[in-house]
């Protein structure tokens, strides 16, 4: 199934669809194009209003400069090398008894612990609360992608607003109170988004109010966890048939984490979680060979750009984690965006670019990304889609690369949980 962006109900007839890699990249780097779509339709009364990902120009740059320190080297290493392996062990251990899971649910459970930590959402340490946060992830994700909703957009908006208010009462209020008390006492507060936002609240340049802080924290909780879970599914669904071609591939997947990372990058290229990125022209501008007029909408067909044969080769639409890719283009294509709005959590999720040649030395500071570790855990336990309960696409959105459920069976049972706090 392939998206036809022109079929979307909210698509004006003069929208420009970009399918070539160079045009798409040029659009994503063009600072005259914004993500500020029609406010009353997409932003107002939703999770998206005035959050980092929709700000433009200087407002966006200043907010990004504030929040980027959350993704510095020390945190990435701490997450990937210390905290996440423990999370994987404890969460997977809960599946030990029946060896069955819905991969979308499992991916959210695995991801949400660290996304809550980054966002500044305090937990009580119970597994029930992790489950509850994973439910918020699914709810908020609908609001974030509201422009691509199939069906009743107002119903989505109402549900998301209700969830936001519940989240404020259940989680944000106590997390915020604790940080404000620490900041007032001059004590060290946790190094997270909520602390950053509260510390900068009096900076008029940033325009941070209480509702904005709620939305930003909710988005940090949700965005990475949702897209990571989706990417785990898309990677597994493409890697298994590729590996089944030859037993040697399975052997290498079990031994070579770098190959697993290449599979993640290749799956991202072919199945980006957003197949149609939107941009709005703030002024008349030029994108590649196209003249664009102020107010015009642009759709970046990510999959077409990522499978541009001039860039990725004549077999660009086949899954080949070992493909040679020109040095100047990312293996994951434009799936994390590019330019000012490129995904802030990219390195956390997908790690650093892999060396061009399999034999190249891997630097000590290499990061594989949390999605790679999740996929590796699934492969280690021989997870396969349940033949009697096939994956269910998420038909609530035109983002057709998304899944609502993906039941899997693990041939190898995980070790029982140790009870270590996560």
């Amino acid at each position: 199934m392939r998206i036809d962006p022109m079929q979307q109900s909210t698509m004006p007839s003069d929208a420009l669809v970009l399918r070539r890699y160079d045009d798409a990249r040029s659009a994503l780097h063009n600072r005259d194009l914004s993500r500020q779509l029609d406010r009353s339709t997409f932003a107002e009364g939703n999770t998206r209003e005035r959050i980092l990902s929709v700000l433009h120009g200087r407002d966006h740059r200043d907010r990004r400069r504030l929040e980027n320190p959350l993704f510095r080297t020390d945190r990435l290493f701490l997450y990937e090398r210390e905290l996440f392996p423990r999370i994987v062990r404890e969460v997977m251990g809960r599946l030990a008894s029946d060896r069955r899971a819905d991969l979308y649910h499992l991916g959210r459970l695995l991801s949400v612990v660290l996304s809550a930590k980054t966002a500044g959402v305090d937990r009580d340490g119970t597994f029930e609360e992790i489950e509850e946060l994973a439910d918020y992830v699914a709810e908020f994700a609908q609001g974030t992608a509201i422009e691509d909703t199939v069906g009743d957009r107002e119903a989505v908006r109402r549900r998301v607003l209700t969830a936001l208010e519940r989240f404020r009462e259940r989680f944000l209020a106590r997390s915020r109170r604790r940080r404000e008390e620490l900041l007032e006492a001059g004590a060290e507060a946790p190094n997270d988004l909520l602390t950053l936002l509260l510390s900068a609240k009096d900076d008029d340049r940033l325009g941070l109010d209480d509702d904005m802080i709620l939305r930003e924290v909710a988005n940090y909780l949700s965005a990475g966890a949702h897209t990571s879970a989706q990417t785990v599914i898309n990677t597994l669904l493409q890697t298994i048939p590729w590996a089944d071609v030859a037993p040697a591939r399975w052997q290498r997947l079990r031994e070579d984490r770098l190959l697993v990372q290449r599979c993640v990058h290749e799956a991202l290229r072919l199945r980006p979680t957003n197949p149609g990125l939107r941009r709005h022209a703030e002024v008349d501008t030029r994108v590649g060979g196209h003249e664009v007029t102020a107010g015009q909408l642009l759709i970046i067909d990510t999959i077409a750009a990522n499978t541009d044969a001039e860039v990725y080769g004549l077999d660009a639409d086949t899954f080949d984690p070992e493909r040679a890719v020109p040095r100047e283009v990312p293996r994951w294509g434009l799936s994390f965006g590019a330019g000012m709005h490129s995904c802030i959590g990219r390195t956390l999720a997908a790690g650093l670019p892999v060396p061009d040649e399999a034999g190249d030395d891997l630097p000590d500071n290499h990061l594989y990304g949390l999605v790679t570790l999740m996929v590796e855990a699934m492969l280690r336990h021989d997870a396969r889609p349940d033949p009697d309960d096939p994956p269910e696409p998420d038909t609530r959105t035109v983002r057709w690369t998304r899944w609502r459920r993906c039941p899997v069976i693990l041939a190898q049972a995980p070790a029982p949980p140790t009870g270590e706090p996560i």
Partner: protein
Amino acid sequence: MPLHAEIDRDLCASTGECVLLAPQAFALSDDDGLAIVLPGLADLDAAELLQVARNCPTNAIRVLDAEGGVLHETG
């Protein structure tokens, strides 16, 4: 041949990607969090430096050759 790199301070969004890829050549300023170039830049070959520049999400790193010719432009 020695290469040079310059940071466009207006474009730099403090993502830190350059530091992740080449910590010997780039750091983030303690003053404003923006990227700065370190003497260790000389340890990178052209291919490594160009990869860092191309990986910068905001394309804020300009790469020049010894004669001042632009190998990678910002923007």
